[in-house]
């Protein structure tokens, strides 16, 4: 048995989904797009039932991917029962979607979620609603688990005898004519296809002309003109008005408003957090606090994991970590290269993956807290006019800001963007934001090469990255990532206190996804780096005689153009694995700080930092990019744009600097 969950955004649909399936769920993408697909199972009376959470939509038109996914799923997979999750405190608009669903399937269970909130606004007559609609109606409060058992009962035993959504007679007549025609060519549900054809639905029209049903299209055109003439308005408005009057009528039949005085808490909070002068400072404060929480609370856990795997040096004495111990143990019974591969390749890669875990978990704890509480929608409202300039909606500011901490969770956070094109644009821009690890390297190099102006140098790099992101954003949004100008209609839902369950499920999903998918790629890359650095046989790890060293020698002429030394190139290779390693590698190659200082002019050092600011992000970030988009071409694009921008910027810095005679 298959059950599909449908509903508007912000109706607590995923809470219902979590309550039904518990932890028996997994998250993936819908084929070909980055829209999230959640699937799970529930067991009722010993029967295993598959539950699919369809994307949240306001209607079922052909204008957005989410809506097309939802309706195609219903038509093609024919779920046995559709659970329509409704925000009971916002009944009228939610019922609009029901009018569209009823055209697709009669087997609908209405879940009136947030019934407690609704009771403060209306008296809702659930029995009358049941009778009028002829469908099972279950009042529920999903976050407290109320009504879940009743919902399960109705899914199995519900009686479906729905009332049809009637359009005005002039339209009904024409729907009849058209649906008879459509029945003949074998499309089901015929009434839905007839209505959509009348409505000029791009997808359905394409499908019909693909089937060669020219006469249907002609007939539809003719009928459509009739309707538009009769009602004196365009077809979409006419149909939407009819549906809304159904929803409106039903709403007033079953709900009587209670007059409540006073302003809601939501209104009070919004009055301040979107305030003309205080709104942005409050936003900055909240973001900064979230940021501190994530990275400072994660720090001890990351240190502990790092110590566990790698051990550490105390006053020149090395304390062994897991890798050292296991390497020593394995060398006793297997060839050295194999022990080294397993430990310095695989295990080190695994260690790197697990080190990310605390940050990812805490970040998604905060992020889902911000999202579930409703503040994220206000961020979108506040920042929209700034972010619009670089082709993103207001929420696009969040991944960009998170990028300063770590690009991996930042790219995972692009899911908060609802539009596919914007999400890709946001992912493409994110690697140009220097993460904490890169900033650490810059701070270190600045102190070596510019001891008097280190802060200024660091600050100039951050500004440079922001300028580049801004310019690229403008460029990309006008060229490669030009969306079909999706309208930005944003709902500002009431503030709610997020539930621990919802937040922790979200946190778990993200971490699990990262571990399983991105983790594999990172470990794979660790092995490749190990091979490149240890072969051919007998060379010192990562030295100039290794493959990495040879590759660096090949690239040296290119490096000269931007002032990079071969050693710097080798360190950048290792930086591909994890940026913070760059310093270690420079130390290994040069021996001490003085030698590092002597190896480059200040201008070369600055050019080196600019190059590192933009060139390909670390492997974990790339793995995440792939994991989020599932698109190898896009991944190559991200790598390519990085090198292109890095090379161009470093070239400009190096040559303009040389011409002006600065820092030679």
């Amino acid at each position, binding site marked *: 048995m298959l059950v599909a969950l449908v509903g508007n955004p912000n109706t607590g649909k995923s809470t219902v989904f979590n309550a039904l399936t518990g932890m028996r769920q997994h998250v993936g993408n819908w084929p070909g797009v980055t829209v999230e697909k959640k699937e799970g199972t529930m067991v009722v009376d010993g029967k295993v039932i598959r539950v699919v959470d369809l994307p949240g939509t306001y*209607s079922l038109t052909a*204008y957005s991917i989410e809506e097309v996914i939802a309706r195609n799923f219903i038509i093609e997979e024919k779920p046995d029962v559709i659970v329509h999750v409704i925000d009971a405190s916002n009944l009228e608009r939610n019922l609009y979607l029901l009018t569209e669903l009823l055209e697709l399937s009669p087997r609908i269970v209405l879940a009136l979620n947030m019934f407690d909130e609704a009771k403060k606004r209306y008296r809702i007559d659930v029995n009358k609603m049941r009778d009028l609609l002829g469908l099972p109606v279950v009042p529920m409060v999903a976050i407290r688990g109320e009504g879940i058992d009743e919902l399960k009962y109705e899914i199995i035993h519900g009686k479906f005898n729905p009332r049809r959504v009637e359009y005005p007679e002039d339209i009904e007549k024409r729907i009849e004519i058209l649906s008879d025609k459509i029945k003949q060519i074998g499309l089901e549900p015929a009434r839905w296809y007839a209505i959509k054809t009348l409505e000029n639905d791009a997808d359905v029209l394409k499908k019909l002309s693909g089937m060669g049903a020219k006469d249907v299209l002609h007939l539809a055109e003719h009928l459509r003109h009739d309707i538009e003439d009769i009602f004196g308005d365009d077809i979409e408005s006419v149909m939407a*008005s009819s549906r809304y009057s159904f929803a409106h009528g039903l709403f007033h039949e079953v709900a*009587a408003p209670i007059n409540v005085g006073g302003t809601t808490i939501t209104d009070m909070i919004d009055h301040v957090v979107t305030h003309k002068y205080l709104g942005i400072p409050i936003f900055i404060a909240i973001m900064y606090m979230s940021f501190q929480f994530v990275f400072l609370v994660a720090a001890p856990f990351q240190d502990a994991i790092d110590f566990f795997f790698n051990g550490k040096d105390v006053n020149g004495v090395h304390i062994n970590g897991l890798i050292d111990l296991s390497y020593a143990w394995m060398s006793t019974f297997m060839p050295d290269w194999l022990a080294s591969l397993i430990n310095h390749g695989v295990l080190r890669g695994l260690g790197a993956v697990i080190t990310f875990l605390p940050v990812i978990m805490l970040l998604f704890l905060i992020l889902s807290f911000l999202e579930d509480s409703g503040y994220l929608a206000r961020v979108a409202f506040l920042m*929209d*006019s700034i972010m619009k300039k670089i082709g993103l909606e207001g929420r696009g500011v969040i991944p960009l800001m998170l990028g300063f901490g770590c690009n991996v969770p930042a790219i995972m956070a692009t899911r908060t963007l609802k539009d596919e094109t914007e999400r890709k644009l946001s992912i493409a821009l994110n690697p140009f934001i220097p993460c904490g690890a890169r900033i650490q390297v810059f701070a270190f190099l600045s102190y070596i090469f510019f001891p008097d102006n280190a802060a200024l140098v660091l600050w100039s790099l951050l500004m440079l990255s922001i300028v580049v992101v801004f310019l690229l954003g403008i460029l990309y949004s006008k060229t490669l990532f030009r969306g079909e*100008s999706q*309208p930005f209609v944003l709902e500002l839902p009431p503030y709610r206190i997020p539930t621990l369950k919802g937040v922790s499920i979200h946190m778990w999903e993200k971490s699990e996804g990262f571990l399983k998918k991105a983790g594999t790629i990172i470990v794979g890359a660790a092995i490749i780096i190990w091979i490149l650095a240890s072969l051919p046989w007998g060379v010192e790890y990562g030295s100039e005689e290794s493959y990495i060293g040879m590759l660096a020698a090949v690239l040296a002429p290119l490096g000269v153009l931007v002032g990079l030394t071969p050693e710097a190139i080798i360190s950048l290779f290792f930086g591909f694995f994890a940026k913070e390693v760059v310093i270690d590698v420079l130390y290994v190659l040069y021996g001490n700080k003085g030698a590092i200082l002597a190896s480059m002019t200040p201008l070369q050092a600055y050019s080196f930092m600019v190059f590192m600011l933009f060139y390909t992000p670390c492997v974990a970030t790339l793995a995440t990019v792939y994991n989020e988009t599932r698109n190898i071409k896009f991944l190559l694009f991200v790598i390519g744009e990085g090198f292109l921008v890095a090379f161009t910027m470093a070239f400009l810095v190096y040559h303009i600097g040389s011409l002006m005679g600065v820092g030679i």
Partner: protein
Amino acid sequence: MKLSELRPGEYAIVKDLLGKGAIHQRLLSMGILPGTVIRVVRASPFGDPVEYEIRGFFISLRKQEASYVEVDKIVPLGMVPSGSVVRIVLIDGGVGFIRNMGSMGIGVGETVRVLRGCCPMLVQTSKGKFNIGRGIAYRIFVR
């Protein structure tokens, strides 16, 4: 006038939707239809987008999108100062509510005189003087 021309705190009734395609359809599915009452809630710090209340929920629209909505400005009875004479243009509610209001002489097209401002307000209709509470006064619209 266009929805984007209204200021925070003002009310309007939708007359027509311009535009085509995605924007048009999205506005429709959010319930912005001819006859719908819209309240302008507040503008964001940079003036764009603007928050609106429709049918009891809140949405934000960019200026550009709001300019696709043709509206007529209306005033809720609750905001009318005492002493004014106004004409009722819309009553927002179900059949029962409209019937109840009708029995007090408050119907679309009727003229009422406000004897005392909100709230509770006192109005003179063709059928006598009536006290009206805040909740109701903000569901009757006049021009």
